[in-house]
């Protein structure tokens, strides 16, 4: 192993995005000629990524000793992409890769979930139109995502950032024949783009202050106090705006539920496990700087808290199985941002990892259900555990992880976040967050009960249902395993086993390495709240649809508020229709009437009118013209006279 790691290591990190790019190019151009439209190329690409990731982890350990991380020179692979130089002036955009523990967490999540999703998709997408194109875009997405997490330069990170946005756009709009899918893709792209305005501004502001796009240089400059605090706060908040857009935080969360129009495996990969945590990655990457600008950190904390709560409450009433999961994703991302907001980067990244596994599992499970029944409204499902035992089992494992039941992965990471919050922020934050965890348990229980238990409510769909093929169940089982055990990584012993002494704390929280430990008092509180949630959910929904409908009538107003997502979509649509399009209408009117018809055509008409009046001087009578000539002679001779 060490021998190979000399040849393939962090220096070769560029291989990570390169392999799927090659797969993307080959599939998109030659998919008609390839067997199975080239899906195997995408899988081979993912396998290659997993392999390279393993090599990189091995290589990475060589720079991790004495409880410190020593990146050294080996970490960066760079060439000049853009270079403008003059006397004592240099404008440089480099391509460089930078791998550290945060990147590695992301790499693990992307490579494992990506591989699972690719394998799963061969079953799920079987026989669909644009089968090969789907795999091409999937490869493109993975390439962009890997570039995003390995890039050492902000510009290239932005490039990848937009690249994942593009892939997300293409995959949400994969079924573009449906107008709703086209609209959802548009909404996702525009909404994230609004956030990206902030990101780009932040990048340029940071460049202006430091003269560099290199992330480590910027962090070094910012933490050493070279940049004014207000300026830095503005820049970091601008960066956070990008994260808000990409990670679907309030107020830009509206695109993620709609994004469920895309193929379910793509949702699992992009809108649950990887792309949406890019924002978390970005903030985590800049966490040393956020240590300096505490105002920005508070903004992150409360944004995350608000998002977590709102999304969880919306998830309570959503009827579409994928939308419930989407709201859950938004909520869990809120948890991660809360963790970042209190400075617990390790907890946040840990949650990224476990969330990637169990949420991907849940999405793939829901995909299996949709694949089998063709329905995705929970009101019409039910009792599916008899038809789809493997799906049901793995889905329940994922749900337990999401709900935060002990042993399962979600419990450990969520507990870490709650623990971190309790020691860094006010009790209010802790209470809201614990309440949100309770809500999470409730809606998760509801989802599981309505889907897999009780009586089937749509008989034809139920009869039609069957267990999915092994290409789909295998990834489910693997992810189920990971969703169960990946939480154990938190223990020092497990960390040591993998070569990271001190567990994940050492892996991701470089500056203040401390080992994770379980405070059983907090853990029991968390467990009790989760179990309470499960019990409440059981009481309400265990019997099937009738109680569910009763639950709806408990408070119709509140229900309507939640179903309509706090009317935020309507608000935004109203703003777009009234304000933006109204303004556009005014400007278009201004251009048409004032600039064009008054300014340009009006000018032409004025000259035309002037000419029209003037033309009557042309009487056509020769004596009149002769009189004019004579008058001219008179003027000339008077001028001569005046001179003489």
């Amino acid at each position, binding site marked *: 192993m060490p021998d190979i790691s000399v040849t393939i290591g962090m220096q070769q990190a560029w291989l990570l995005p390169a392999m799927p790019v090659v797969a993307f190019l080959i599939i998109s151009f030659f998919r008609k000629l390839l067997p199975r439209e080239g899906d195997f190329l995408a899988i081979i690409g993912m396998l290659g990524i997993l392999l390279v990731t393993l090599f990189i982890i091995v290589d990475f350990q060589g720079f991790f000793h004495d409880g410190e991380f020593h990146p050294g020179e080996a970490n960066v692979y760079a060439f000049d992409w853009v270079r403008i130089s003059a006397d004592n002036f240099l404008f440089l955009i480099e391509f460089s890769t930078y791998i550290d523990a945060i990147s590695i967490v992301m790499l693990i999540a992307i490579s494992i979930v990506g591989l699972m999703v690719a394998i799963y998709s061969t079953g799920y997408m079987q026989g669909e139109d644009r089968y090969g194109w789907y795999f091409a875009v999937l490869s493109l997405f993975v390439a962009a995502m890997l570039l995003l997490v390995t890039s050492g330069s902000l510009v290239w990170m932005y490039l990848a950032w937009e690249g994942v946005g593009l892939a997300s756009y293409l995959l949400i709009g994969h079924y573009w024949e449906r107008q709703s899918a086209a609209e959802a893709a548009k909404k996702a792209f525009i909404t994230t783009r609004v956030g990206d305005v902030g990101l780009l501004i932040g990048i340029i502001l940071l460049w202006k202050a430091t003269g560099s796009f290199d992330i480590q240089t910027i962090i070094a400059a910012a933490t050493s106090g070279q940049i004014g605090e207000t300026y830095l706060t503005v820049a970091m908040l601008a960066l956070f705006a990008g994260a808000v857009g990409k990670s679907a935080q309030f107020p830009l969360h509206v695109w993620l539920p709609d994004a469920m129009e895309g193929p379910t495996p793509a949702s699992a990969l992009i809108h649950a496990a990887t792309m949406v945590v890019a924002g978390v990655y970005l903030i985590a990457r800049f966490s040393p700087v956020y240590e300096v600008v505490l105002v920005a950190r508070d903004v992150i904390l409360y944004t995350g808290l608000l998002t977590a709560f709102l999304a969880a409450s919306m998830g309570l009433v959503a009827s579409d199985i994928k939308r419930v999961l989407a709201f859950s994703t938004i909520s869990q991302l809120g948890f991660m941002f809360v963790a970042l907001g209190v400075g617990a980067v390790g907890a946040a990244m840990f949650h990224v990892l476990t969330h990637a596994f169990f949420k991907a599992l849940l999405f793939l499970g829901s995909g299996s259900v949709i694949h089998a029944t063709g329905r995705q409204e929970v009101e019409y499902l039910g009792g599916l555990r008899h038809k789809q035992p493997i799906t049901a089992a793995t889905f329940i494992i994922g749900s337990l992880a999401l709900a935060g039941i002990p042993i399962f992965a979600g419990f450990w990471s969520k507990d870490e976040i709650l623990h971190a919050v309790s020691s860094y922020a006010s009790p209010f934050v802790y209470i809201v967050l614990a309440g949100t965890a309770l809500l999470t348990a409730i809606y998760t229980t509801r989802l599981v009960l309505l889907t897999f238990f009780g009586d089937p409510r749509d008989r034809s769909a139920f009869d039609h249902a069957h267990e999915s093929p092994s290409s789909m169940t295998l990834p489910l089982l693997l992810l189920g395993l990971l969703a169960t055990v990946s939480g154990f990584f938190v223990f020092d012993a497990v960390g040591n086993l993998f070569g990271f002494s001190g567990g994940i704390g050492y892996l991701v929280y470089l500056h203040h390495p401390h080992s994770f430990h379980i405070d059983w008092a907090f853990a029991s509180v968390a467990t009790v709240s989760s179990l309470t949630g499960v019990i409440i959910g059981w009481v309400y929904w265990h019997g099937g649809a009738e109680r569910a409908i009763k639950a709806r009538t408990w408070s119709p107003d509140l229900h309507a508020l939640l179903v309509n997502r706090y009317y935020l979509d309507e608000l935004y649509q109203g703003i777009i229709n009234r304000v933006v399009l109204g303004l556009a209408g005014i400007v278009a009117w201004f251009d048409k009437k004032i600039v064009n018809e008054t300014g340009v055509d009006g000018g032409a008409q004025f000259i035309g009118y002037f000419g029209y009046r003037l*033309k009557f001087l042309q*009487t*056509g*009578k*020769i*004596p009149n013209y*002769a*009189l004019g000539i*004579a008058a001219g002679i008179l003027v000339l001779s008077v001028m001569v006279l005046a001179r003489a």
Partner: protein
Amino acid sequence: MIPIEYFLTLGAILFGLGLFGVLSRRSAILILMAVELMLAGVSINFIAFASYLDTDAFSGLIFALFVITVAAAEVGLALGIVLRLFRERRTSNVDEASDMRW
């Protein structure tokens, strides 16, 4: 001896009267006649200058000769045009030949 100013003044008056004719008359032929008056006025000037001031070269004389020649040609051609106009319109009133207006 007669001072040159006499001739020049006469030339100016003749030119002016001719111009008045050109401007006030309506018949094409009368306008032509008035043009001849103007030319005569100019010719007087030329010749006066030639014989008073340009005694060696008398270019003015030659110029006057050309003026007379060109006037003859002009009258011939102009009459042709007038005739043509008359045939087309049954009039030689220039006011009525105003097709070239706006």
